[in-house]
């Protein structure tokens, strides 16, 4: 097997299962197999899916800087999967909220969306993630050409919206949102730094 085959048939399934395991644990805990949910199970499920969505957007946004620093050039091959897991966890978080917490009451949902800014932020992130997930198919990507790249820069906005949503949601203790904010600043900061460096005179784009 060559490297590409190894990635496709060995590493991708392993990473896939690893990425899925937090969801399996939520399911296992809900049925009392792997553990127990708290006395407020809906809040527990909501928090866990939300937290994993944030972790996955961070992991996804870390791919480019990590590859650049490490020259692990195989890393971007996992980016789409990681991005889709961000969508998966964010969507499960949304579904838990919509079905179990808001109990499908559309008037409640509308009130939340319009009157509670942190929910507006979170919902915007879900909408953007959905657009990114739909356009992640290779065929669509090819058809979109260079516009695809522009659209998928929205992943940065998703990170910002997600952290902001969490920050405004917590009651008092901002420790966890702050940790995500710091990680996100580093991930976006290095990109900006490299962007500035690239613009410096005397630097020329290497021939393709």
């Amino acid at each position: 097997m060559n490297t590409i085959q190894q990635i496709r048939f060995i590493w991708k399934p392993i990473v896939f299962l690893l990425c899925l395991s937090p969801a399996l644990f939520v399911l296992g805990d809900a049925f009392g197999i792997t553990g127990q949910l708290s006395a407020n199970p809906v809040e527990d499920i909501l928090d866990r899916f939300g937290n994993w969505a944030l972790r996955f957007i961070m992991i996804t946004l870390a791919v480019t800087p990590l590859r650049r620093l490490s020259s692990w050039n195989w890393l971007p091959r996992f980016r789409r999967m990681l991005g889709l897991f961000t969508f998966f966890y964010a969507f499960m978080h949304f579904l838990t909220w919509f079905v179990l917490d808001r109990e499908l009451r559309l008037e409640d949902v509308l009130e939340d969306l319009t009157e509670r800014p942190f929910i507006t932020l979170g919902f915007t992130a879900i909408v953007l993630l959905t657009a990114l997930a739909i356009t992640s198919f290779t065929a669509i990507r090819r058809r979109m050409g260079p516009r695809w790249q522009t659209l998928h820069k929205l992943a940065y906005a998703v990170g910002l919206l997600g952290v902001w949503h969490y920050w405004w949601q917590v009651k008092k203790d901002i420790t966890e949102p702050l940790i995500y904010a710091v990680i996100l600043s580093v991930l976006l900061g290095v990109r900006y730094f490299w962007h500035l460096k690239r613009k410096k005179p005397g630097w020329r784009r290497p021939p393709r």
Partner: protein
Amino acid sequence: MLIKKPSDIRPSEITSETNYINRRDFIRAGAIAGGSLIAPGAISAVIPDSRLAKLSNISASPFSTDEAPNSFEDISTYNNYYEFGLGKDDPVVYAEDFKTRPWTIEVSGEAEKTGTFDFDDFMKPFDLEERIYRMRCVEAWSMVIPWVGISLAEVVKHFRPTSKAQYVAFETLKDRDQMPGVRGRSLDWPYREGLTIAEATNPLPILAVGIYGNVIPNQNGAPIRLVVPWKYGFKGIKSIVKIRFMSTRPKNSWNMAIPREYGFYANVNPTVSHPRWSQARERRIGAGIFASKQETLMFNGYGEHVAHLYKDLDLRRNY
């Protein structure tokens, strides 16, 4: 004493509504008559100094709800007590070795009787009652808790507040060594709460010392905590070391921290939203993942006893 077990059949379903109401009045009348026959101090509240020990001489209360109480597990493992951590599951872990003896309560301010009292002496003049109350958290979840405690109104009367006393202020212990949360800056310690004198002398509030007929677990505010069933849970200040009768409105911790979101009154009110969530409905803990939320009641369903306290108050502004 008899501890009510959660049951599928509620008394209200067995008894016809009229008989049910009559029965409640009968119990209430009995309790009032009984109370007047017993000389003050005849049953003195003795709180054993050992964890979860059984309490004795507890009388039932006409103010108790017939709703099925939450399990001891729910009540003792899911609560907020920021002195022991910010997670709901932190207090049960970090309060385990909390020392509730020796314990003193300092009573000060606008009252004839003031001083620092040993906990056991503080408790002696009062009678223990079981009060099964709904508890509505400002975070839109709720429980039913079978508290054991003493009437706050009796406690207030005992210390003979002067005419200057318009408010009663409470303070929690602030102990950096025992309370890991106090080392953090999540709130401005010590935790502070307060009531108007009219609220404090209403028959509903209690100083709770027990749950399910036993000594109250550390994580729920041992050895003594406030319970005000028509207000959001954060008014229920835990592990009280100071009680002060004041002529001016005392500060309360959550209002100090985020005044836009938490007021002084904190009355349960389904029509006034928290800025970040609706208070119209609540999730009853223990009901299960797929149980629907229930409507939140004005004053948490205790309006008949307390609504008159606020008849001249704009509850939108005084949240």
